[in-house]
């Protein structure tokens, strides 16, 4: 197990290098001026040149990349052009907020997904299955930003039950796990959970239906094992796949919540990316993408290790 873990960790080095190259290249090939957030369109040519030099954008791309990577390896992701604040501080604060939202959404999505999936799988081809499957399909199909807006219109603008935006009455820095603050989490978490809920439900349904038809379950039943025992065997066999799917979903939620975080003004990585893109804030953009990509790599690693621990048959080469 330890050897496997070390090997997987070593594999992440080329992945990190690849990710850093791709993320640097992507932000630099996109059109627009890297100094647009601090340099109005009517700034003089001399001023433009002076700032390009001061920020190091007059250097060759390879030189810029090596300098950025060297600093990144030491934990310094540079300084945001637009705000002047350290990128690492900005990203880590946003990561924490996104992680909090994604974790709640994941738990919600995973719980509901498993519930619908098991129910549909156990009552395969019945009206219960059709209802649970319909909910799952709806979850996957509904554009989540649209659902977010609808929820805001109903529960915030019309009923006034829940806050429409933000991460707490005093901002995310003053976050507490109490009702006053958690109210801010409800609508974005529900919105964010619908896609993983749908995907997990469909996966679990297929798994459960398949497992229930397998010989070992028939054997267990023939031996007189009760339904609770059968259920436990099904759970154990379905768990690795469901966990793998959920791990991937958590990764997607961490990086793919731009629309939801924008709709709810949730100060996470999605909103940060949105802001960095519109301001052409290259250090912030690079730093955020790099951190998110590394999170994804880390999550995959954790899921792989968990799967191996849960099911010893999964021996990675």
């Amino acid at each position, binding site marked *: 197990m330890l050897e496997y873990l070390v090997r997987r960790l070593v594999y992440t080095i080329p992945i990190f290098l690849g990710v850093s190259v791709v993320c640097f290249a992507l932000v630099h090939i996109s059109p627009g001026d890297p100094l647009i957030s601090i340099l109005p369109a009517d700034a003089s040519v001399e001023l433009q040149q002076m700032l390009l030099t001061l920020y190091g954008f007059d250097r060759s791309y390879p030189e810029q990349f090596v300098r950025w990577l060297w600093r990144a390896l030491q934990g310094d992701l540079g300084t945001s052009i637009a*705000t002047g604040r350290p990128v690492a501080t*900005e990203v880590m604060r946003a990561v924490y907020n996104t992680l909090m939202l994604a974790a709640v959404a994941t738990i919600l999505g995973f719980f509901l997904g498993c519930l619908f999936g098991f129910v549909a799988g156990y009552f395969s081809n019945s009206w219960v299955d059709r209802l649970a499957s319909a909910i799952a399909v709806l979850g996957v199909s509904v554009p989540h930003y649209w659902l977010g807006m609808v929820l805001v219109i109903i529960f915030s*603008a019309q009923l006034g039950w829940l806050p429409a*935006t933000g991460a707490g009455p005093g901002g995310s*820095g003053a976050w507490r796990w109490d009702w006053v603050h958690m109210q801010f989490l409800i609508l974005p978490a529900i919105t964010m959970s619908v896609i993983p809920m749908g995907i997990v439900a469909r996966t679990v349904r297929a798994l459960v239906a398949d497992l229930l038809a397998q010989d070992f379950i028939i054997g267990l039943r023939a031996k007189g094992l009760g339904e609770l025992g059968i259920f436990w065997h099904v759970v154990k066999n379905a768990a690795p796949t469901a966990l793998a799917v959920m791990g991937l979903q958590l990764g997607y939620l961490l990086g793919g919540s731009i629309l939801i975080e924008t709709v709810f*003004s949730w100060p996470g990585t999605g909103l940060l990316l949105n*802001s960095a893109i*519109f301001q052409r804030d290259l250090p912030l953009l690079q730093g955020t993408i790099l951190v998110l990509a590394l999170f994804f790599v880390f999550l995959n690693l954790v899921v792989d290790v968990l799967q191996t621990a849960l099911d010893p048959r999964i021996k990675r080469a």
Partner: protein
Amino acid sequence: MAQTFTRTLAFALVAATALVTPALAQEKVLRIGMTAADIPRTLGQPDQGFEGNRFTGIPIYDSLTQWDLSKADEASVLIPGVATEWSVDESDQTKWVFTLREGVTFHDGSPFDAAAVVWNVDKVLNQEAAHFDASQVGVTASRMPTLRSARVIDDMTVELTTSEPDSFLPINLTNLFMASPAHWQAKFDAVDASVTDPKLRAEQAWTAFAADPSGSGPFRVTAFAPRERLELVPNTEYWDPARTPTIDRVVMIPLPEANARTAALLSGQVDWIEAPSPDAIPQIESRGFTVYSNAQPHVWPWQLSFAEDSPWLDKRVRHAANLCINRSELKELLGGYMAEPVGTVAPGHPWWGNPSFEIKYDPDAARALMSEAGFSAETPLKVKVQTSASGSGQMQPIPMNEYAQQSLRDCFFDVELDVIEWNTLFTNWRRGAKDPTANGANAINVSFAAMDPFFAMVRFTSTAAFPPVSNNWGYFGNDEFDALIATARTTFEADKRDEALAALHARIVEEAPFVWIAHDVGPRAMSPKVGNVVQPRSWFIDIATMTIED
């Protein structure tokens, strides 16, 4: 005994509640939903365009000169700020002397004086200064392109030097906000001793200053959560009693998404939102909120190309396009939230100038001009306009451009729209109509602020502003315009300078290097509890004089 104790406790609780509740209830808080995606920079020179000046410039800082924001029914004009008077040196018109206001102090208690002015000029113009900050240069230096240096004459008198005689300097100086040198120095001294590089120390000092800024404006910062909220409380020592706030606390929240802003207002999370989406305005009004708007110096035009082979080289065509836009119908399309332009500035403005060409809706006259120029319904003139699908100040670019496209079809124009991403469009604006990035377009749709003469007129009509120097994208200009600009720039008496600018504006309207389509009116929706709201004809609004009703 126990009963007595319980009664006493109950009485004490009731009494304490009675004392505390009114105090809490009476706190007058104004919560604002901005369109910015982040809190504009708080260190003195805000980013995010004029929304930055509106929310983290004017409320927190003072400038030598300022805009009069106290009137809604006339143009916002220049008035003294922390300089009480100023004049140009007649023997050397590149030198200006500013007399400073006595008794002004920064929020940290240090005095405002001539040395503070020099320090604030040096922060953006003197690369040798310890506190020089590259990140503030762009948004400052370009708004005062001729300012070069400052020198202390005495404690309350300062001399500013420009690169050439420039009568626009006092107007430009509304963009130079006075940060506290003493407070910055304290931040600099507090930087960890392990940081030895002076530039890095200065950078860290500015970061710390931004988190805990000190200006001399009517509000001071008490809490700052990047990208989430900024809290201000009144500066009770403010030098202008008329602008000493009565609101206890102002909270600014960045809400870049229009629907999120509307929901925040309707759910009572904020009391004021900037730029509500036109679709939401009827609902907002039906819920008892007030929507304020006023013509502001925010021009939404097509800027035309005068490059070789441009279809706009013919003045009849330019006039025809200006006569063919049914602006009142477009206004209806936008729910009434635009002003119908008749030039870059409106009649009554000091720079109006009474041009001989009248911009109005007259499709018959437009068609006659187009026929005269050789075009007809069968042989329309093909033009191509580069625009964006969204962007800061762009209003509703797609429906508005499509409306103009349809409108102009009636006058023998065949308009092709080239829609590109906003930042790319903004970058192209600087590159000019002859650059490959124009993609064959002979007009560009970038809205602009017309607060000062340089931004409103000079950069679009001076031959010295041809790309890549500035925003004369269309290469419009000639000796006549250069002479008009030079006259305005070297006329130092304010009234006469305005007369010269009026002459320039009149000629611009007559030559029509733009199709003037709309002026923004800066709609903002507010709770009825926000009182004393004056929406001036400006990009800015004075929060300091507002009130909160109980």
